[in-house]
C-alpha cells in the first residue's frame, strides 16, 4: 500500500536459484545482492545487515535444503529478502531460533558451518522476520529491512 503513495520509485526484483550442498556456488547470490545494494548506495550499515541476512539465508539453503530461491525486492524505503526452499523443514522453530542450536551434521560443522547462529543472526539484523516451515516440504523465510528506520 505504501508503494502506491510514491509511484515514481519502482522496486527492483531479483531471483537467484540455489542448490543444496552446492558449495562451489555458495555465497554467490548474497555477494550479488550486496553488489546491487552498493550500486544503489544504501548506508554501509544497511548494506551490511542485508548482506548478512542474505548470506546466512543462502547458506541455510545450501546446508539444509534440497533446493531453493532467494528473491529480493529493493526500493528506497524497503529491502525484502525471501528465502524459499524445498527441503526437510524445521521441526522445532523455537529451538532453531536459539543461538548455538544446530541440526547440521558433523561433516558440515567441520567445514566451519552449522554453528547454530544462522537464524538468530538473521533475526538480529532484520526489522521484520517471518519464518514458515512445513515438515518434509520446505521453509520460507521473509526478512524486511527498512533502510531509513
Amino acid at each position: 500500500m505504501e508503494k502506491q503513495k510514491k509511484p515514481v520509485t519502482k522496486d527492483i526484483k531479483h531471483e537467484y536459484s540455489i542448490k543444496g550442498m552446492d558449495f562451489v556456488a555458495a555465497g554467490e547470490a548474497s555477494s550479488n545482492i550486496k553488489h546491487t545494494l552498493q550500486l544503489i548506495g544504501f548506508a554501509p550499515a544497511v548494506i551490511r545487515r542485508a548482506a548478512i541476512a542474505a548470506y546466512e539465508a543462502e547458506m541455510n539453503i545450501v546446508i539444509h535444503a534440497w533446493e531453493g530461491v532467494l528473491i529480493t525486492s529493493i526500493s528506497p524505503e524497503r529491502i525484502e529478502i525471501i528465502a524459499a526452499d524445498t527441503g526437510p523443514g524445521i521441526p522445532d522453530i523455537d529451538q532453531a531460533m536459539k543461538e548455538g542450536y544446530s541440526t547440521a551434521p558433523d561433516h558440515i560443522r567441520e567445514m566451519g558451518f552449522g554453528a547454530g547462529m544462522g537464524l538468530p543472526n538473521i533475526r538480529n539484523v532484520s526489522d521484520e522476520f517471518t519464518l514458515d516451515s512445513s515438515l518434509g516440504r520446505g521453509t520460507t523465510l521473509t526478512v524486511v529491512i527498512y533502510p531509513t528506520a
Partner: protein
Amino acid sequence: MTKKHFLCDIVDAEKCNGCTNCVKNCPTEAIRVRKGTAITIEERCINCGNCIRTCPYHAKIAITDPLDLRRLREFKYTIALCSPVLYSQFHRVMPPGKILNAVKALGFDDVFQESIGADAFMVAARNLLKSRRLKKPVISSACPAVVKLIQVRFPSLIDNIAPLLSPMEIAAKLAREQVSRNKGIPEDQIGIFMITPCTAKVTSIKRPVGIDKSPIDGAIAMIHLYGNILNALNTVPDDSSLAKASGMAIGWARSGGETIAVNAPNYLVADGLNNVISIFEEAEMGHFKDVDYIECLVCQGGCVGGPLTVENPFLARIMTRDLIKKLPDSLPPETLKTADDLYQKGYFHHSKTIEAHSVMTLNQDISKAIQMVSRAEEILRTLPGLDCCSCGSPSCRALAEDIAQGYASVTDCIFKLLENIQDSAQDMLNLLKKEKRIRDMGKGSKK
C-alpha cells in the same frame, strides 16, 4: 588540474597503448581505457600500485619527488625517513647504519628509521587491545592502502580500524620534534622525506587519513633512489648511531612481522590484495568476531612486495629475516616506557574520524540509482559476457554500469559494434537490392 595532483600515479600517454592490463588488475575498478589511453577514476583509486606493477609498457608512473632532490632546498634542515624495506634490497645483509648513512650522503642533513614508528605503534596497539574499547576484530592502520580499501569498498569496517597514526607518521612526528628540540630549528623549517617502497604512502602524505596534515613533507620512490644509494654504499662507513630501531620493528617489512610485535592472542595475517579483499568480505559478514587483531597488507609478502621496490619480494623476505636475527629484539625498557607515556597522552591517536567514500554508488539519489541498476541489468543481458575488456571497462558488468551512468555507449563493446555494422551492412544490402529491383522494374516497363 589541482585535483589530479592527489593521484599518486599518472599515465604517460605516449607509452600507454591502451592494453587494459591495468584495467583488469584494479581491485576497485577505478581504471578505464578511453580513446586508447588509461584514465583513473580518482575517487575509486586506493593507490595500491597494482597498475604500476602490471603495466608492461611502464606507462604508469608513480608521482614522487624528483630524483635531483631539488625540494630539499625548500627547508633549512632535511631528514630522510627510511622504510625498513630498504635494508632488504642489496642481496646481502648489511648493517642498517651503513645503508642509512648512504642515504644521508645523498644530500640529507639527517636520516631516521621509519621502524622507530613501528616500535611505538607496537606499544600503542598493545595498549589499545588491552583497553578492549574497540570493536573486534581490530584492523591495523599501518598499511595506508588497506585503510583506503576499507573507505572505498568496505565502509562498514571503518569502526574496526585502529585509530592510530601509521608507523611512518609516528616516526616523522618524533623525528621532527627531536630535531627541533636538539638543534633549535623551528619545526616548519624541517623537511621530512619518506624513502618509500609503495605508492599508497605517497598518497597518504599528500592526502592523509585520520589527521589534517601529514607530518611528512615529501616522498621519494625507493626504486628511483636505488642506484644512488648503491654508489654511496661503496664509500660510506657504518654509523650505528643512526640505527636504533629494534629487530622486531624492522621485521614489519614483511607480512606477519607486525603481528609478532603486537602479540595479540588471536590474530589473522593476510597479504596480497585479493586475499585482503576476501578477508574483508568475510569480516563484513561478522565472521571474525573472536579474532582480536587483523594485519592486512595489500602487497604480496607485505611491504617488501611494494611496487616501488627493487629486490624480489621473496628474497627480500629472507634478507629481512637474516638481518633481524642480528639485532636486539626490542627497544630498551626506558624507551618503551616513554612510548607508553606518549600513548597515554593520545600522541599516537588519529585526530579525526575516518570517512567512508561510497564510490561504488551509481547515483546519489537512491531512486535514480535503482533505475540505473535496472537499466544496467538490461544492458548486461545484451552483452556477450566475455569480460574481454576490449571496451576499456574491466568487465561486461562494469561496462553495463558505465553505460547506465552515461560514461560509455553500447558500441564501445566490439561485439555489439560488429553486430551493428553487420546489421547496417545488411540494411545497406537490402536497400541496394531494393533499388536494383526498382531500377530493373523501370527498365522492364520501358521495354
